[in-house]
C-alpha cells in the first residue's frame, strides 16, 4: 500500500521547463507569471462581499471595484492560480506525493511550525504588496524581462534570507 514517492525532476530541467512556461506567458499575454495576486483578489472579493461600505470607503479596495468590471475574481492571475493548483495536484498525485503532511525542521514541533508558517505567510502577504509581486511575479518575471525591479526584489528577498538565516536556524536544521 505504502508507495515510495518518485524522485523530483532534475532541477536544471525543471528550471528550463519553467523558463519555457514563463516565455509562453510573455509570448501570449505580454506579462509574466504570478501567484500572490490571486490571494489579493480573494481578499478584495471577500471584503467586498462582507462589507461593501467598507470596501467603497477604503482606497485600497475601492480602486479595484471602481476600475474594470468590478470583478476581482475574473482576473488573469486568479485563473492562472487555478491552473497552478490543477497542475500541481496532478503532478503530486501522479508522483505519489499527495497526502496530508507537515514539512519542518527536526527540532521544532508541529504547532510551532504552523505558527511560523502563518507568520511567514502574513509577512509575505505584506511584502508582496510593497514589492508589487512576489518571488514569481516581481522577481522571476521581472528578471526575465531584465527589469531593475526584478533583480532588486530578488536580491532583497534572498539577501535578507541569507543574512537572517543564522538567527532562525532552529526552525530548519540541527546545528
Amino acid at each position, binding site marked *: 500500500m505504502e508507495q515510495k514517492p518518485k524522485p523530483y525532476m532534475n532541477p536544471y530541467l525543471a528550471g528550463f521547463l519553467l523558463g519555457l512556461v514563463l516565455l509562453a506567458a510573455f509570448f501570449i499575454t505580454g506579462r509574466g507569471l504570478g501567484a500572490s495576486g490571486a490571494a489579493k483578489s480573494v481578499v478584495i472579493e471577500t471584503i467586498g462581499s462582507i462589507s461593501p461600505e467598507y470596501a467603497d470607503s477604503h482606497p485600497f479596495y475601492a480602486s479595484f471595484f471602481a476600475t474594470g468590471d468590478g470583478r476581482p475574481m475574473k482576473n488573469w492571475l486568479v485563473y492562472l492560480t487555478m491552473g497552478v493548483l490543477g497542475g500541481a495536484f496532478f503532478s503530486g498525485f501522479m508522483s505519489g506525493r499527495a497526502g496530508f503532511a507537515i514539512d519542518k525542521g527536526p527540532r521544532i514541533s508541529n504547532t510551532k511550525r504552523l505558527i511560523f508558517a502563518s507568520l511567514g505567510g502574513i509577512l509575505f502577504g505584506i511584502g508582496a504588496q510593497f514589492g508589487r509581486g512576489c*518571488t514569481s511575479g516581481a522577481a522571476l518575471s521581472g528578471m526575465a524581462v531584465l527589469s531593475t525591479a526584478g533583480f532588486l526584489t530578488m536580491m532583497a528577498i534572498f539577501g535578507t534570507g541569507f543574512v537572517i538565516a543564522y538567527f532562525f536556524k532552529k526552525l530548519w536544521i540541527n546545528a
Partner: protein
Amino acid sequence: MGPLIPQGFVNPDLNLFFAFVIGLGFGYVLEQGGFSNSRKLAGVFYGYDFVVLRVFFTAAITAAIGLLLFSYMGWVNYDLLYVNPTFLWSALVGGVIMGFGFILGGFCPGTSMVAAVIGKIDAMVFVLGLMIGVFIFGSFYEDFLPLYTGENLGSIFIFDTLGLTRDWFVFLLVLVALVAFIVTRKIEDKVNGIETSKGLFAPLYVGPVLIMLVAAIVVLWLPESPSAKWFETDAETVLGEAAEGKQFVQTEELAYKLLNSKENDYLLVDIRGDEAFAEFTLPGAVHIPADKVLDLGYKKLLSESKKPILFFGFSDTDASQAWMSLRRTGISDVFVLKGGLNQFFETIFFAETQTNTHQEMPLFEARFIERAREAFQSGEAAEKINVKAKPITTIVEMEAPPAGQGGC
C-alpha cells in the same frame, strides 16, 4: 507577432483560458521540481539543498534569453512586454519583508499554493497568512502610500542601471549562474557530508547549462540590430523598385477606378495632415498621417488589408516615403499615386488650361477625362463609392497595466 493578446491576434476572451493552461504548466513544473516541500525550499539558506537557486536561476535565464531571441527574430515585440516598474524603496522594503517571510514560513506564495493543494498543512496555513497579510496591507494602505508609490524610477532595465549593454549583461548573468551552480553544488555536498561530487559534471546537469551558455554567446554574437528580419524586404530590393518607379499608379488609372467602383481594388490612404484631410479627400479614402504609417494600430490595418494599398498626398514625395517605410516591413502590395492630388486635379479638372498637351492626347483619353471631370464635379463618383471617408483613430487598444498595481 507576439505578444499575441496585447496586439489583438488572439481573442481577449481566450485570455483567461490561456491563463489557466499556463498555470497548469507552472504548477506542474514547480511541484515536479520539489517546490512543494518547505524543507527543500528553506535548504537554500542553510546550504543543504540549493534546488530553489537552480530552478529559479535557470528559469529566469531561459526566459530572458528566449525573449531576446524571440525579439531578435521578430516573433515578439519587446516594447509591448510588461516591465515591472521600479519603485526603489518599496521594492527593497518589500523584498526584505518577503525575505523574513521566506525564512519563517518556508514558502513563497506560488510554492505555498503548490504545496497546499497536495495536502501540506503548513502550506495551507501559509496561504491563509498570505491573505491576512494582504488585508493588513490594505488596512494601513494610506499610511504606506508614501513608501509604496515613492521614488518611482519607471520601467527601467537592469543593464541600463548597471551601465552595460543588454547582451553583455545577459552573458555575464549566465556566467554568474554557472559559477553559482558549481559553487553551491560543492557547498551542498560538504554540508550533507557527501565525499564525491560525481554529479557535478554529469551530462544531465551540464547539458542544460551548456545550452544556456551557447544561447548567451549567440545573443552576444548577433548584431545589435539585425539588417533585416526574416519577413522584411531588404533595402536593395526596395531601392531597386523605387528607381524603376514600380510603386507609381498613374492619375488616369485611379480616376478610372474611382469612376468604376466595382473595379476599384485599392485601399486609398490619405497621408496628409489632419486639417488637409478634414477639408477634402478622395472618395473612400482612410486617413493615416505619413509619420504614423508604422504605428502599431495603423500598421496592423495596412498589413491585414486584402486590397492593394495606395498612398496619396498633395505630391508624391511624402507618399513615396510612406511607401518605402511600409515596403521595408515586408508588405508588398503598396503603391503611390504618381504626382499626388495636385497632378490628379490638374489632369482631371484643369486639363483645358494645358491646351497643348490636351491636343496631343489621344481622343479617347480626352473624352475619359471629360467624363471624369463631370463625374467628380457632380459628385457622381462619391455617390457610387457610397462610403464616407472617415479617419481612423484607434485600431487596437493597448492594455497598459496601471503603474503601481503590478500583480504577482
